């Protein structure tokens, strides 16, 4: 049986992949991922690496303890990219499901950022309660 651990490090590996799409809600996913990664709450992986079938990226996602995928809108491009790569074991969050309207602008309010940040943070919580 495989031993699942990060190299030279204790604790669980939590990974975020986001759509980072060309709208307020798409960019909101990017901003939230940057914040969580900067705070050390998650590792931020490139979704483009999954779409590009980079074997190291795909294997790294498979090796993570917890994976959260953020999409801005119901188009769910990030989810579809994951599914196309055969990656199924993840939590999914769609920003518009939080009541934030999609607009083709890049203006993000502090309230929307905070709401999305908290929702993403909740999904990063592992079953172990960490």
């Amino acid at each position, binding site marked *: 049986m*495989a*031993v699942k*651990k990060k190299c030279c490090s204790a604790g669980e590996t939590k990974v975020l992949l986001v759509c980072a799409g060309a709208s307020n809600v798409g960019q909101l996913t990017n901003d939230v991922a940057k914040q969580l990664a900067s705070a050390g709450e998650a590792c931020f992986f490139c979704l483009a690496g999954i779409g590009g079938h980079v074997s190291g990226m795909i294997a790294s996602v498979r*090796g993570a303890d917890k994976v959260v995928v953020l999409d801005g809108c119901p188009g769910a491009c990030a989810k579809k990219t994951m599914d196309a790569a055969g990656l199924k074991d993840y939590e999914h969050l769609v920003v518009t499901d939080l009541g934030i309207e999609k607009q083709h602008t890049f203006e993000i309010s502090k309230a929307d950022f905070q709401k999305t940040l908290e929702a993403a943070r909740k999904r990063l919580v592992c079953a172990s309660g960490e």
Partner: protein
Amino acid sequence: MKKLQVLGTGCPKCKKLAENAEAAAKALGIEYELEKVTDINKIMKFGVMITPALAVDGEVKTAGKVPSVDEIKSMIS
């Protein structure tokens, strides 16, 4: 000749992965070359974000885990 590359900076789990990979290759009776890649820049070129990782003929098969010898045998063959 199979090219096996263990990607990691040299922690005990990297060493265990290298041992298991070598044992798997020997058990299969194949010709192989085992390389330990410890340079973080070279590791990043594989797209690996979590180590240790194992690449077979340039394709990363596993990352962030130490698979058993049997599991690695199925990755190699």
